[in-house]
């Protein structure tokens, strides 16, 4: 479903030094219904990779194909259609602060053009899956970090996307909440959604026992079927 071919991303240096190579000839394929972890130190290129997949920017060289469509050729007005097929979970949650948790999740369905009936049926179901039924009408500022991240996951999966990308979703969480979030992602994967998890949490990777792609200084240094966290 997702295929990267020799993807290179170079950012110009602002202070006249050498340009920054964020990604260097990265190639790999991700199949449907796969659980893939991207690991690497901070600055290894994980976030850049996810930004390119979301078409926030284009690679300097190489191509990214999503379901056979080259993201480089996608029209500006079609970018939002592409993004509706991807659920994203951010390290800093990025919930809408002026909307309740219910509205945060319902927003995605509104974007998709779902009917009011569908929204009032689906949102409580998803809130139940992430265990936030009793927080539905609270604002994000009234929730803990773990609860916010669960709400963000609920928002990313409400519209049944083809793939969920989680960028360091446990970066701000304690070990207990980290475990809860990972469990949730595994559950989503088991229900049939592709999951791309970017993390630098050794514990998480080693307990998962799934495919691991290791990035270092913008290159893929390892791609193992049942990988472990080795840097």
């Amino acid at each position, binding site marked *: 479903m997702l295929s990267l071919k020799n993807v290179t991303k170079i950012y110009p240096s602002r202070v006249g030094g050498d340009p920054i190579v964020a990604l260097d000839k990265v190639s790999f394929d991700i199949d449907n219904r796969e659980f893939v972890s991207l690991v690497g130190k901070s600055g290894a290129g994980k976030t850049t990779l996810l930004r390119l997949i*979301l078409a*926030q920017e284009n690679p300097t060289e190489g191509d990214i194909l999503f379901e056979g469509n080259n993201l480089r050729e996608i029209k500006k*007005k079609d970018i*939002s*259609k*592409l*993004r*509706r097929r*991807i659920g*994203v979970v951010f390290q800093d949650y*990025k919930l*809408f*602060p*002026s909307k309740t948790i219910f509205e945060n999740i319902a*927003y*995605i369905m*509104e*974007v*998709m*053009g779902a*009917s*009011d009936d569908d929204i009032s049926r689906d949102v409580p179901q998803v809130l139940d899956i992430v265990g936030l039924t009793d927080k539905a009408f609270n604002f994000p500022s009234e929730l803990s970090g773990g609860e916010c991240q669960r709400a963000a996951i609920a*928002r990313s999966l409400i519209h049944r996307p083809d793939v969920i990308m989680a960028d360091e979703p446990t970066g701000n969480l304690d070990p207990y909440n980290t475990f809860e979030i990972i469990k949730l992602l595994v559950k989503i994967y088991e229900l049939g959604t592709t999951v791309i998890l970017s993390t630098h949490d050794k514990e998480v990777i080693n307990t998962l026992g799934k495919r691991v792609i290791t990035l270092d200084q913008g290159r893929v240094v390892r791609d193992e079927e049942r990988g472990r966290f080795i840097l």
Partner: protein
Amino acid sequence: MLNSFKRVIKAGFKAFFRNAGLGAATIFVMVMVIFLVTMLWLLNPASEILVENIQEKVDVSVYFKKDAQAEEILQAKSEITKISEVREVEYVSKEQALEKFIERHKDDPTLMESLTEVGENPFLASLNIKAQQASQYEQVASFLESSDFSGIIDKVDYHQRKPVIDKVISMTNNINKFGIVLGIVLGVIAVLIAYNTIRLAIYNSSREISTMRLVGASNWFIRGPFLIQGIIVGVLAGLITLIITFGVSYGFNAKVASILSGVSMMSLFLSNFWTIILIQFVTGTGLGIISSMIAIRKFLKV
């Protein structure tokens, strides 16, 4: 499509009421802007009336020789009336001139005495001429001096009055110019302040806007609620300004009338009621919509 439209409107109202403080601040700034624009517009006719009032007081007089007959003078009057630059001609006979003089100076014994000493009526019959515009007196004066009846004319007092007339012309021109420049400057400042206020309000939501882009919302679905908020702010600001304008026109009516004779704020307000509403709501919603559109553009580039 209709569903999305409904949602955009609902989201706009919701966001407005949840951020009521910010909305109130924006409305406050907007009210000042619209009020200023309204006043500039409303007082424009007032300045015209002021200028007219000053020009009204300017005239030139033609004095006729002592032996000129009343018929000849009236003949001259009817000819002068035919000149297109002339607005009004008034005939003052010798007797009327004397009466006016006595009326004016009856409390001044010296002048009265000297009048008795002269023995006869020393005044000349005259025509007071008012031109359409202050700048036309020159032409009128030169016409009089070269006319058929120039033989019976004693003098035209245009040349003595010229400095005063010139001063009135330059003063009224300056009032108009000053008004236009002041209007433009204040208008531009007001619009910039309103734009900046809205920009700050939207900047508050900048992260939210880029997240909306990242989760796949189309540009119009994001813009829509902000435009609705812009319209709400504009309409409310327009409404509040209308009430304030009415209050000011009503409350200051007498005061303004006493300073600028012939200017009634209340009648200006009432006779231009619909135009004022149009100005206020167009300024309000226009500023709201355009400022929102410009301010949000930057954050949609994700």
